[in-house]
Protein backbone atom coordinates (compact mmCIF):
# COMPACT_ATOMS: atom_id res chain seq x y z
CA UNK A 1 0.00 0.00 0.00
CA UNK A 2 1.11 3.59 -0.60
CA UNK A 3 0.78 6.43 1.87
CA UNK A 4 -1.73 9.04 0.80
CA UNK A 5 -1.18 11.23 3.86
CA UNK A 6 2.25 11.69 5.41
CA UNK A 7 2.55 13.60 8.66
CA UNK A 8 6.06 14.28 9.92
CA UNK A 9 6.90 15.60 13.37
CA UNK A 10 3.83 17.83 13.41
CA UNK A 11 3.67 20.27 16.29
CA UNK A 12 0.97 22.76 17.16
CA UNK A 13 1.35 25.30 19.93
CA UNK A 14 -1.61 27.60 20.46
CA UNK A 15 -1.34 31.20 21.60
CA UNK A 16 -0.90 31.05 25.32
CA UNK A 17 1.57 28.19 25.03
CA UNK A 18 -0.78 25.17 25.03
CA UNK A 19 0.95 22.39 23.10
CA UNK A 20 -1.86 20.54 21.33
CA UNK A 21 0.38 18.37 19.14
CA UNK A 22 3.82 17.30 20.32
CA UNK A 23 5.53 16.03 17.18
CA UNK A 24 3.07 13.62 15.58
CA UNK A 25 4.37 11.37 12.81
CA UNK A 26 1.86 9.26 10.94
CA UNK A 27 1.47 7.64 7.51
CA UNK A 28 -2.06 6.93 6.30
CA UNK A 29 -2.40 4.25 3.66
CA UNK A 30 -4.63 4.70 0.64
CA UNK A 31 -7.98 2.96 0.96
CA UNK A 32 -7.82 2.21 4.67
CA UNK A 33 -10.03 3.26 7.55
CA UNK A 34 -7.91 4.69 10.31
CA UNK A 35 -9.54 5.44 13.64
CA UNK A 36 -7.85 7.97 15.89
CA UNK A 37 -8.83 7.14 19.39
CA UNK A 38 -8.31 9.43 22.30
CA UNK A 39 -9.97 11.13 25.23
CA UNK A 40 -11.39 14.67 25.00
CA UNK A 41 -8.62 17.23 24.50
CA UNK A 42 -6.15 14.62 23.22
CA UNK A 43 -5.40 16.59 20.03
CA UNK A 44 -7.53 14.60 17.57
CA UNK A 45 -9.42 17.60 16.17
CA UNK A 46 -6.26 19.74 16.08
CA UNK A 47 -4.53 17.03 14.04
CA UNK A 48 -7.40 16.87 11.54
CA UNK A 49 -7.74 20.67 11.42
CA UNK A 50 -4.06 21.04 10.64
CA UNK A 51 -4.16 18.50 7.83
CA UNK A 52 -7.27 20.15 6.37
CA UNK A 53 -5.91 23.72 6.55
CA UNK A 54 -8.15 25.11 9.28
CA UNK A 55 -5.26 25.43 11.71
CA UNK A 56 -1.73 26.52 10.84
CA UNK A 57 0.97 24.08 11.96
CA UNK A 58 3.67 25.43 14.30
CA UNK A 59 6.29 23.09 12.82
CA UNK A 60 6.61 19.81 10.97
CA UNK A 61 5.08 18.91 7.64
CA UNK A 62 1.95 17.32 6.21
CA UNK A 63 1.74 15.99 2.69
CA UNK A 64 -1.52 14.84 1.07
CA UNK A 65 -1.29 12.94 -2.20
CA UNK A 66 2.23 14.34 -2.61
CA UNK A 67 1.13 17.95 -2.04
CA UNK A 68 2.38 19.88 0.97
CA UNK A 69 -0.65 21.27 2.84
CA UNK A 70 0.95 24.73 3.14
CA UNK A 71 2.89 25.29 -0.08
CA UNK A 72 0.69 23.10 -2.29
CA UNK A 73 -2.56 23.70 -0.44
CA UNK A 74 -4.75 23.67 -3.54
CA UNK A 75 -3.65 20.22 -4.66
CA UNK A 76 -3.83 18.85 -1.12
CA UNK A 77 -7.25 20.26 -0.25
CA UNK A 78 -8.85 19.11 -3.50
CA UNK A 79 -8.25 15.54 -2.32
CA UNK A 80 -9.80 16.04 1.11
CA UNK A 81 -13.37 16.05 2.33
CA UNK A 82 -13.98 17.11 5.92
CA UNK A 83 -16.96 16.33 8.12
CA UNK A 84 -16.63 18.50 11.21
CA UNK A 85 -17.59 17.49 14.71
CA UNK A 86 -20.19 20.25 15.14
CA UNK A 87 -23.21 20.49 12.89
CA UNK A 88 -22.08 23.62 11.09
CA UNK A 89 -24.60 24.28 8.35
CA UNK A 90 -26.32 27.36 7.00
CA UNK A 91 -29.88 26.79 8.25
CA UNK A 92 -31.71 28.71 5.53
CA UNK A 93 -30.15 26.92 2.57
CA UNK A 94 -31.85 24.04 0.80
CA UNK A 95 -30.02 20.73 1.01
CA UNK A 96 -29.28 20.71 -2.72
CA UNK A 97 -27.96 24.28 -2.72
CA UNK A 98 -25.79 23.61 0.29
CA UNK A 99 -24.18 20.56 -1.31
CA UNK A 100 -23.83 22.30 -4.71
CA UNK A 101 -22.12 25.23 -2.97
CA UNK A 102 -19.52 22.90 -1.47
CA UNK A 103 -18.80 21.32 -4.84
CA UNK A 104 -18.26 24.74 -6.42
CA UNK A 105 -16.05 25.85 -3.55
CA UNK A 106 -13.71 22.96 -4.22
CA UNK A 107 -13.35 23.94 -7.85
CA UNK A 108 -15.55 21.30 -9.40
CA UNK A 109 -17.97 22.05 -12.23
CA UNK A 110 -21.66 21.40 -11.92
CA UNK A 111 -22.58 17.71 -11.99
CA UNK A 112 -26.20 17.13 -11.02
CA UNK A 113 -25.98 13.39 -11.65
CA UNK A 114 -23.15 12.98 -9.15
CA UNK A 115 -24.92 15.07 -6.49
CA UNK A 116 -28.06 13.01 -7.04
CA UNK A 117 -26.00 9.84 -6.53
CA UNK A 118 -24.54 10.93 -3.19
CA UNK A 119 -27.84 12.32 -1.93
CA UNK A 120 -29.48 9.01 -2.74
CA UNK A 121 -26.62 7.08 -1.15
CA UNK A 122 -27.11 9.09 2.03
CA UNK A 123 -30.93 8.84 1.92
CA UNK A 124 -31.24 12.59 1.44
CA UNK A 125 -32.72 12.67 -2.04
CA UNK A 126 -36.28 13.14 -0.77
CA UNK A 127 -35.10 16.08 1.33
CA UNK A 128 -33.13 17.84 -1.40
CA UNK A 129 -35.54 20.79 -1.50
CA UNK A 130 -35.95 21.02 2.26
CA UNK A 131 -34.18 23.77 4.15
CA UNK A 132 -31.43 22.53 6.44
CA UNK A 133 -33.19 23.91 9.52
CA UNK A 134 -36.17 21.62 8.82
CA UNK A 135 -34.05 18.46 9.10
CA UNK A 136 -33.47 16.20 12.08
CA UNK A 137 -30.05 15.99 13.72
CA UNK A 138 -29.24 12.75 11.94
CA UNK A 139 -30.21 14.19 8.56
CA UNK A 140 -28.03 17.23 9.20
CA UNK A 141 -25.05 14.97 9.89
CA UNK A 142 -25.70 13.27 6.58
CA UNK A 143 -25.83 16.66 4.84
CA UNK A 144 -22.38 17.36 6.29
CA UNK A 145 -21.14 14.09 4.80
CA UNK A 146 -22.79 14.89 1.45
CA UNK A 147 -21.07 18.28 1.42
CA UNK A 148 -17.73 16.66 2.21
CA UNK A 149 -18.22 14.14 -0.60
CA UNK A 150 -19.57 16.66 -3.10
CA UNK A 151 -16.18 17.25 -4.77
CA UNK A 152 -15.32 13.55 -5.07
CA UNK A 153 -12.50 13.51 -2.51
CA UNK A 154 -10.07 10.61 -2.19
CA UNK A 155 -9.71 11.14 1.56
CA UNK A 156 -12.51 11.74 4.00
CA UNK A 157 -11.94 13.05 7.50
CA UNK A 158 -14.76 12.38 9.91
CA UNK A 159 -14.33 14.22 13.18
CA UNK A 160 -16.37 12.36 15.78
CA UNK A 161 -19.11 11.49 13.27
CA UNK A 162 -21.32 9.77 15.78
CA UNK A 163 -20.81 11.99 18.83
CA UNK A 164 -24.15 12.36 20.54
CA UNK A 165 -26.19 10.37 18.01
CA UNK A 166 -28.41 7.44 18.87
CA UNK A 167 -27.40 3.82 18.39
CA UNK A 168 -29.51 3.33 15.27
CA UNK A 169 -28.02 6.32 13.49
CA UNK A 170 -24.53 5.29 14.60
CA UNK A 171 -24.98 1.95 12.87
CA UNK A 172 -26.28 3.74 9.77
CA UNK A 173 -23.16 5.92 9.78
CA UNK A 174 -20.98 2.83 9.99
CA UNK A 175 -22.76 1.42 6.95
CA UNK A 176 -22.13 4.66 5.07
CA UNK A 177 -18.45 4.53 6.02
CA UNK A 178 -18.21 0.90 4.86
CA UNK A 179 -19.78 1.84 1.51
CA UNK A 180 -17.35 4.72 1.09
CA UNK A 181 -14.40 2.46 1.81
CA UNK A 182 -15.72 0.02 -0.77
CA UNK A 183 -15.74 2.85 -3.30
CA UNK A 184 -12.03 3.45 -2.64
CA UNK A 185 -12.17 6.45 -0.30
CA UNK A 186 -9.54 6.60 2.45
CA UNK A 187 -11.24 7.38 5.73
CA UNK A 188 -9.78 8.87 8.86
CA UNK A 189 -12.16 9.16 11.76
CA UNK A 190 -11.69 10.40 15.24
CA UNK A 191 -13.74 8.96 18.00
CA UNK A 192 -13.77 8.32 21.67
CA UNK A 193 -16.15 5.42 21.22
CA UNK A 194 -14.00 2.33 21.40
CA UNK A 195 -16.70 0.14 19.90
CA UNK A 196 -16.78 2.41 16.85
CA UNK A 197 -13.07 1.92 16.21
CA UNK A 198 -13.41 -1.78 16.90
CA UNK A 199 -16.35 -2.12 14.52
CA UNK A 200 -15.15 -0.26 11.45
CA UNK A 201 -11.43 0.57 11.50
CA UNK A 202 -8.60 -1.27 9.78
CA UNK A 203 -5.96 0.44 11.86
CA UNK A 204 -6.16 2.25 15.14
CA UNK A 205 -4.10 5.15 16.38
CA UNK A 206 -4.20 6.07 20.03
CA UNK A 207 -3.57 9.72 20.76
CA UNK A 208 -3.44 11.41 24.12
CA UNK A 209 -2.03 14.73 25.32
CA UNK A 210 -0.90 15.59 21.78
CA UNK A 211 1.15 12.45 21.33
CA UNK A 212 0.46 9.46 19.15
CA UNK A 213 1.05 6.52 21.46
CA UNK A 214 0.72 3.90 18.76
CA UNK A 215 -0.75 3.11 15.36
CA UNK A 216 -1.41 -0.50 14.64
CA UNK A 217 -3.58 -2.93 12.78
CA UNK A 218 -6.76 -3.39 14.82
CA UNK A 219 -6.62 -7.18 15.04
CA UNK A 220 -2.95 -7.36 15.89
CA UNK A 221 -3.36 -4.58 18.45
CA UNK A 222 -6.04 -6.50 20.26
CA UNK A 223 -3.97 -9.65 19.97
CA UNK A 224 -0.70 -8.04 21.02
CA UNK A 225 -1.94 -6.03 23.90
CA UNK A 226 -4.83 -8.23 24.76
CA UNK A 227 -4.93 -10.16 27.97
CA UNK A 228 -7.10 -13.18 28.39
CA UNK A 229 -8.93 -14.28 31.46
CA UNK A 230 -9.80 -17.76 32.52
CA UNK A 231 -12.88 -18.10 34.68
CA UNK A 232 -12.95 -21.25 36.78
CA UNK A 233 -16.40 -21.99 38.10
CA UNK A 234 -16.43 -24.10 41.24
CA UNK A 235 -18.89 -26.80 42.26
CA UNK A 236 -18.76 -25.62 45.87
CA UNK A 237 -17.92 -22.04 46.87
CA UNK A 238 -14.61 -21.34 48.58
CA UNK A 239 -14.29 -18.88 51.47
CA UNK A 240 -10.77 -17.80 50.55
CA UNK A 241 -8.19 -18.50 47.89
CA UNK A 242 -6.08 -21.44 49.08
CA UNK A 243 -2.47 -20.61 50.01
CA UNK A 244 -1.20 -23.08 47.40
CA UNK A 245 -2.73 -20.92 44.62
CA UNK A 246 -1.43 -17.56 45.85
CA UNK A 247 1.22 -17.40 43.10
CA UNK A 248 -1.48 -17.14 40.42
CA UNK A 249 -2.96 -13.81 41.65
CA UNK A 250 -6.48 -15.15 41.33
CA UNK A 251 -9.56 -13.04 41.89
CA UNK A 252 -12.40 -14.56 43.87
CA UNK A 253 -15.74 -13.60 42.30
CA UNK A 254 -19.44 -14.51 42.49
CA UNK A 255 -19.28 -14.98 46.28
CA UNK A 256 -16.58 -17.61 45.91
CA UNK A 257 -18.37 -19.56 43.20
CA UNK A 258 -15.67 -18.67 40.68
CA UNK A 259 -12.01 -17.74 40.38
CA UNK A 260 -10.53 -15.51 37.68
CA UNK A 261 -7.04 -16.05 36.31
CA UNK A 262 -5.55 -13.32 34.09
CA UNK A 263 -2.77 -14.32 31.70
CA UNK A 264 -0.78 -12.92 28.84
CA UNK A 265 -1.45 -14.60 25.50
CA UNK A 266 2.02 -13.66 24.25
CA UNK A 267 3.86 -15.19 27.20
CA UNK A 268 5.92 -18.33 26.68
CA UNK A 269 3.79 -20.21 29.15
CA UNK A 270 0.28 -19.25 30.10
CA UNK A 271 0.46 -21.25 33.34
CA UNK A 272 -2.99 -22.72 32.81
CA UNK A 273 -1.94 -26.39 32.95
CA UNK A 274 -0.02 -25.90 36.20
CA UNK A 275 -2.89 -23.88 37.69
CA UNK A 276 -5.43 -26.59 36.97
CA UNK A 277 -3.08 -29.21 38.40
CA UNK A 278 -2.52 -27.17 41.60
CA UNK A 279 -6.25 -26.48 41.82
CA UNK A 280 -7.00 -30.21 41.82
CA UNK A 281 -4.48 -30.71 44.66
CA UNK A 282 -6.29 -28.20 46.88
CA UNK A 283 -9.44 -30.29 46.73
CA UNK A 284 -11.51 -27.65 44.94
CA UNK A 285 -13.73 -29.05 42.20
CA UNK A 286 -14.42 -27.08 39.09
CA UNK A 287 -17.76 -27.27 37.32
CA UNK A 288 -16.92 -25.19 34.23
CA UNK A 289 -14.21 -23.19 32.46
CA UNK A 290 -14.57 -20.04 30.42
CA UNK A 291 -12.02 -17.75 28.67
CA UNK A 292 -12.54 -14.05 27.94
CA UNK A 293 -10.59 -11.73 25.57
CA UNK A 294 -10.01 -8.15 26.78
CA UNK A 295 -11.74 -5.55 24.63
CA UNK A 296 -10.17 -2.61 22.86
CA UNK A 297 -11.61 -0.43 25.57
CA UNK A 298 -9.56 -2.25 28.21
CA UNK A 299 -6.47 -1.84 26.05
CA UNK A 300 -7.16 1.83 25.52
CA UNK A 301 -7.76 2.56 29.19
CA UNK A 302 -4.56 0.67 29.99
CA UNK A 303 -2.52 2.67 27.46
CA UNK A 304 -3.83 6.04 28.54
CA UNK A 305 -3.30 5.19 32.22
CA UNK A 306 0.21 4.00 31.47
CA UNK A 307 0.96 7.27 29.68
CA UNK A 308 -0.39 9.32 32.58
CA UNK A 309 1.72 7.41 35.10
Amino acid at each position, binding site marked *: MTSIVQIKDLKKVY*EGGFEALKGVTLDIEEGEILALLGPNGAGKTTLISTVCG*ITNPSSGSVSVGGHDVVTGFRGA*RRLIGLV*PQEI*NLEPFLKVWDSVAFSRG*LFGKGRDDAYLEKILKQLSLWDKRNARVMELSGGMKRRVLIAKALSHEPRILFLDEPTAGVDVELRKEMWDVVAELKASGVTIILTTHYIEEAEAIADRIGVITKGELLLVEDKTSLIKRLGQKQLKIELSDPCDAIPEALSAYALDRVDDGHALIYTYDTQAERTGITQLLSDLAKTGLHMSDLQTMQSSLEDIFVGLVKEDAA
Partner: protein
Amino acid sequence: MNLSAVWAIYYSEMARFFRTLAQSFISPVISTSLYFVVFGSAIGSRIDQVEGVSYGAFIVPGLIMLSVMTQSLSNASFGIYFPKFIGTIYELLSAPINYFEIVLGYVGAAATKSLFIGLVILGTASFFVDLQIQHPIWMLAFLVMTCISFALFGFIIGIWAQNFEQLQLIPLLVVTPLVFLGGSFYSISMLPAAWQTIAMANPVVYLISGFRWSFFGLADVPVAVSLMAIGGFMVLCLGLIWWIFRTGWRIRS
Protein backbone atom coordinates in the same frame (compact mmCIF):
# COMPACT_ATOMS: atom_id res chain seq x y z
CA MET B 1 -7.37 30.70 -9.96
CA ASN B 2 -10.35 28.81 -8.57
CA LEU B 3 -13.06 30.68 -10.47
CA SER B 4 -15.59 28.03 -9.63
CA ALA B 5 -15.17 28.84 -5.92
CA VAL B 6 -15.43 32.58 -6.54
CA TRP B 7 -18.65 31.99 -8.43
CA ALA B 8 -19.99 29.64 -5.74
CA ILE B 9 -19.48 32.30 -3.05
CA TYR B 10 -20.79 35.10 -5.26
CA TYR B 11 -23.85 33.12 -6.33
CA SER B 12 -24.61 32.02 -2.77
CA GLU B 13 -24.37 35.59 -1.46
CA MET B 14 -26.54 36.95 -4.26
CA ALA B 15 -29.07 34.20 -3.59
CA ARG B 16 -29.25 35.40 0.03
CA PHE B 17 -29.91 38.92 -1.28
CA PHE B 18 -32.85 37.72 -3.35
CA ARG B 19 -34.09 35.46 -0.54
CA THR B 20 -34.33 38.48 1.73
CA LEU B 21 -35.47 40.91 -0.92
CA ALA B 22 -37.69 42.94 1.40
CA GLN B 23 -34.87 43.53 3.83
CA SER B 24 -32.12 44.05 1.30
CA PHE B 25 -33.86 45.99 -1.41
CA ILE B 26 -37.26 47.39 -0.49
CA SER B 27 -36.24 48.93 2.83
CA PRO B 28 -33.44 51.14 1.41
CA VAL B 29 -35.78 52.29 -1.36
CA ILE B 30 -38.50 53.20 1.14
CA SER B 31 -36.09 54.98 3.47
CA THR B 32 -34.62 56.95 0.55
CA SER B 33 -38.09 57.94 -0.60
CA LEU B 34 -38.76 59.19 2.93
CA TYR B 35 -35.57 61.27 2.78
CA PHE B 36 -36.86 62.85 -0.41
CA VAL B 37 -40.19 63.61 1.18
CA VAL B 38 -38.63 65.11 4.33
CA PHE B 39 -35.50 66.79 2.99
CA GLY B 40 -36.41 67.28 -0.63
CA SER B 41 -40.02 68.41 -0.33
CA ALA B 42 -40.62 69.62 3.24
CA ILE B 43 -37.27 71.29 3.93
CA GLY B 44 -36.23 71.68 0.30
CA SER B 45 -39.27 73.83 -0.47
CA ARG B 46 -37.80 76.47 1.89
CA ILE B 47 -34.29 76.27 0.40
CA ASP B 48 -34.19 77.73 -3.04
CA GLN B 49 -31.00 76.45 -4.64
CA VAL B 50 -27.53 75.29 -3.61
CA GLU B 51 -24.83 76.58 -5.96
CA GLY B 52 -27.33 76.83 -8.78
CA VAL B 53 -28.85 73.38 -8.30
CA SER B 54 -32.32 72.78 -6.82
CA TYR B 55 -32.02 71.43 -3.28
CA GLY B 56 -34.02 68.30 -4.14
CA ALA B 57 -31.57 67.41 -6.91
CA PHE B 58 -28.54 68.52 -4.87
CA ILE B 59 -29.12 65.89 -2.19
CA VAL B 60 -29.47 62.98 -4.68
CA PRO B 61 -25.73 62.10 -4.88
CA GLY B 62 -25.42 62.34 -1.09
CA LEU B 63 -28.44 60.11 -0.57
CA ILE B 64 -27.12 57.52 -3.00
CA MET B 65 -23.72 57.60 -1.28
CA LEU B 66 -25.36 57.29 2.14
CA SER B 67 -27.18 54.12 1.09
CA VAL B 68 -24.33 52.66 -0.95
CA MET B 69 -21.78 53.10 1.82
CA THR B 70 -23.96 51.69 4.59
CA GLN B 71 -25.27 48.84 2.40
CA SER B 72 -21.78 47.88 1.20
CA LEU B 73 -20.59 47.81 4.78
CA SER B 74 -23.48 45.81 6.16
CA ASN B 75 -23.65 43.33 3.25
CA ALA B 76 -19.94 42.55 3.25
CA SER B 77 -19.55 42.48 7.03
CA PHE B 78 -22.56 40.21 7.48
CA GLY B 79 -21.49 38.05 4.52
CA ILE B 80 -18.22 36.99 6.16
CA TYR B 81 -19.37 37.29 9.80
CA PHE B 82 -22.29 34.88 9.33
CA PRO B 83 -20.13 31.84 8.39
CA LYS B 84 -17.92 32.67 11.36
CA PHE B 85 -20.97 32.89 13.64
CA ILE B 86 -22.60 29.63 12.52
CA GLY B 87 -19.31 27.79 12.08
CA THR B 88 -19.47 27.18 8.32
CA ILE B 89 -16.20 29.11 7.94
CA TYR B 90 -14.47 25.72 8.27
CA GLU B 91 -15.51 25.01 4.72
CA LEU B 92 -13.89 28.17 3.36
CA LEU B 93 -10.70 27.50 5.28
CA SER B 94 -10.42 23.91 4.11
CA ALA B 95 -11.27 24.61 0.47
CA PRO B 96 -8.63 25.00 -2.26
CA ILE B 97 -9.03 28.77 -2.46
CA ASN B 98 -6.76 31.65 -1.56
CA TYR B 99 -7.68 34.84 0.25
CA PHE B 100 -7.98 36.86 -2.92
CA GLU B 101 -10.62 34.48 -4.27
CA ILE B 102 -12.57 34.58 -0.99
CA VAL B 103 -12.48 38.39 -1.02
CA LEU B 104 -13.46 38.48 -4.67
CA GLY B 105 -16.54 36.34 -3.97
CA TYR B 106 -17.77 38.12 -0.84
CA VAL B 107 -16.76 41.67 -1.70
CA GLY B 108 -17.89 41.24 -5.30
CA ALA B 109 -21.34 40.15 -4.16
CA ALA B 110 -21.63 42.89 -1.52
CA ALA B 111 -20.52 45.53 -4.02
CA THR B 112 -22.97 44.22 -6.65
CA LYS B 113 -25.86 44.41 -4.18
CA SER B 114 -25.08 47.96 -3.11
CA LEU B 115 -24.46 49.05 -6.71
CA PHE B 116 -27.87 47.65 -7.55
CA ILE B 117 -29.43 49.51 -4.63
CA GLY B 118 -27.59 52.71 -5.62
CA LEU B 119 -28.95 52.50 -9.15
CA VAL B 120 -32.46 51.79 -7.86
CA ILE B 121 -32.26 54.86 -5.61
CA LEU B 122 -31.09 56.91 -8.59
CA GLY B 123 -34.12 55.64 -10.49
CA THR B 124 -36.41 56.38 -7.53
CA ALA B 125 -34.94 59.89 -7.25
CA SER B 126 -35.74 60.60 -10.87
CA PHE B 127 -39.43 60.33 -9.93
CA PHE B 128 -39.03 63.12 -7.36
CA VAL B 129 -36.62 65.55 -9.04
CA ASP B 130 -35.39 66.53 -12.46
CA LEU B 131 -31.92 64.96 -12.73
CA GLN B 132 -29.14 65.57 -15.21
CA ILE B 133 -25.86 63.73 -15.00
CA GLN B 134 -23.00 65.72 -16.56
CA HIS B 135 -20.36 62.94 -16.37
CA PRO B 136 -22.20 59.61 -16.44
CA ILE B 137 -19.05 57.50 -16.86
CA TRP B 138 -17.39 59.18 -13.89
CA MET B 139 -20.61 58.88 -11.94
CA LEU B 140 -20.59 55.14 -12.51
CA ALA B 141 -16.86 54.94 -11.76
CA PHE B 142 -17.24 56.76 -8.43
CA LEU B 143 -20.23 54.61 -7.56
CA VAL B 144 -18.45 51.35 -8.33
CA MET B 145 -15.27 52.39 -6.49
CA THR B 146 -17.28 53.40 -3.44
CA CYS B 147 -19.20 50.11 -3.50
CA ILE B 148 -15.97 48.12 -3.70
CA SER B 149 -13.97 50.09 -1.14
CA PHE B 150 -16.74 50.11 1.47
CA ALA B 151 -17.43 46.43 0.85
CA LEU B 152 -13.73 45.80 1.52
CA PHE B 153 -14.01 47.84 4.71
CA GLY B 154 -17.15 45.88 5.65
CA PHE B 155 -15.30 42.60 5.05
CA ILE B 156 -12.63 43.71 7.55
CA ILE B 157 -15.32 44.64 10.10
CA GLY B 158 -16.94 41.22 9.59
CA ILE B 159 -13.67 39.45 10.34
CA TRP B 160 -12.87 41.73 13.28
CA ALA B 161 -16.32 41.42 14.88
CA GLN B 162 -16.72 38.75 17.53
CA ASN B 163 -20.42 39.36 18.14
CA PHE B 164 -23.38 41.09 16.52
CA GLU B 165 -22.91 44.18 18.68
CA GLN B 166 -19.40 44.72 17.33
CA LEU B 167 -20.72 44.11 13.83
CA GLN B 168 -22.97 47.16 14.20
CA LEU B 169 -20.53 49.27 16.19
CA ILE B 170 -18.42 50.86 13.46
CA PRO B 171 -21.22 51.31 10.90
CA LEU B 172 -23.48 52.97 13.47
CA LEU B 173 -21.02 54.94 15.56
CA VAL B 174 -18.42 55.90 12.99
CA VAL B 175 -19.56 55.56 9.41
CA THR B 176 -23.14 56.87 9.64
CA PRO B 177 -22.10 60.10 11.46
CA LEU B 178 -19.25 60.61 9.00
CA VAL B 179 -21.63 60.18 6.07
CA PHE B 180 -24.19 62.58 7.55
CA LEU B 181 -21.47 65.13 8.35
CA GLY B 182 -19.75 64.55 5.01
CA GLY B 183 -21.97 66.84 2.98
CA SER B 184 -24.74 64.43 2.03
CA PHE B 185 -27.41 67.10 2.53
CA TYR B 186 -25.40 70.29 2.18
CA SER B 187 -22.35 71.78 0.54
CA ILE B 188 -19.28 72.09 2.75
CA SER B 189 -19.06 75.73 1.61
CA MET B 190 -22.31 76.37 3.52
CA LEU B 191 -20.51 75.68 6.81
CA PRO B 192 -18.74 78.33 8.89
CA ALA B 193 -15.03 78.64 7.97
CA ALA B 194 -13.77 76.75 11.03
CA TRP B 195 -16.12 73.83 10.41
CA GLN B 196 -15.11 73.74 6.77
CA THR B 197 -11.53 73.09 7.89
CA ILE B 198 -12.66 70.38 10.34
CA ALA B 199 -14.87 68.78 7.66
CA MET B 200 -11.80 68.27 5.48
CA ALA B 201 -10.64 65.63 7.96
CA ASN B 202 -13.74 63.61 7.13
CA PRO B 203 -12.81 61.14 4.35
CA VAL B 204 -16.44 60.84 3.27
CA VAL B 205 -16.41 64.50 2.17
CA TYR B 206 -14.04 63.59 -0.66
CA LEU B 207 -16.20 60.72 -1.87
CA ILE B 208 -19.47 62.67 -1.84
CA SER B 209 -17.79 65.69 -3.40
CA GLY B 210 -16.40 63.67 -6.30
CA PHE B 211 -19.69 61.89 -6.83
CA ARG B 212 -21.64 65.16 -6.76
CA TRP B 213 -19.21 66.62 -9.26
CA SER B 214 -20.08 63.82 -11.71
CA PHE B 215 -23.73 64.95 -11.52
CA PHE B 216 -23.54 68.74 -11.46
CA GLY B 217 -19.92 69.67 -12.12
CA LEU B 218 -19.77 71.11 -8.57
CA ALA B 219 -17.20 69.93 -6.04
CA ASP B 220 -16.10 70.89 -2.54
CA VAL B 221 -12.63 69.49 -3.25
CA PRO B 222 -10.79 68.92 -6.55
CA VAL B 223 -11.91 65.73 -8.34
CA ALA B 224 -8.36 64.39 -8.50
CA VAL B 225 -8.15 64.61 -4.71
CA SER B 226 -11.45 62.70 -4.43
CA LEU B 227 -10.11 59.99 -6.71
CA MET B 228 -6.90 59.72 -4.73
CA ALA B 229 -8.88 59.52 -1.49
CA ILE B 230 -11.07 56.67 -2.68
CA GLY B 231 -8.13 54.89 -4.31
CA GLY B 232 -6.05 55.27 -1.15
CA PHE B 233 -8.89 53.93 0.99
CA MET B 234 -9.24 50.91 -1.28
CA VAL B 235 -5.51 50.15 -1.15
CA LEU B 236 -5.53 50.50 2.64
CA CYS B 237 -8.42 48.02 2.96
CA LEU B 238 -6.76 45.56 0.57
CA GLY B 239 -3.54 45.79 2.54
CA LEU B 240 -5.35 45.09 5.79
CA ILE B 241 -7.17 42.10 4.27
CA TRP B 242 -3.89 40.71 2.90
CA TRP B 243 -2.42 40.96 6.42
CA ILE B 244 -5.50 39.31 7.97
CA PHE B 245 -5.26 36.28 5.71
CA ARG B 246 -1.48 36.07 5.92
CA THR B 247 -1.61 35.95 9.70
CA GLY B 248 -4.98 34.18 10.00
CA TRP B 249 -6.10 36.89 12.44
CA ARG B 250 -9.48 35.98 13.93
CA ILE B 251 -10.19 33.35 11.30
CA ARG B 252 -7.50 30.69 11.46
CA SER B 253 -6.04 29.55 14.76
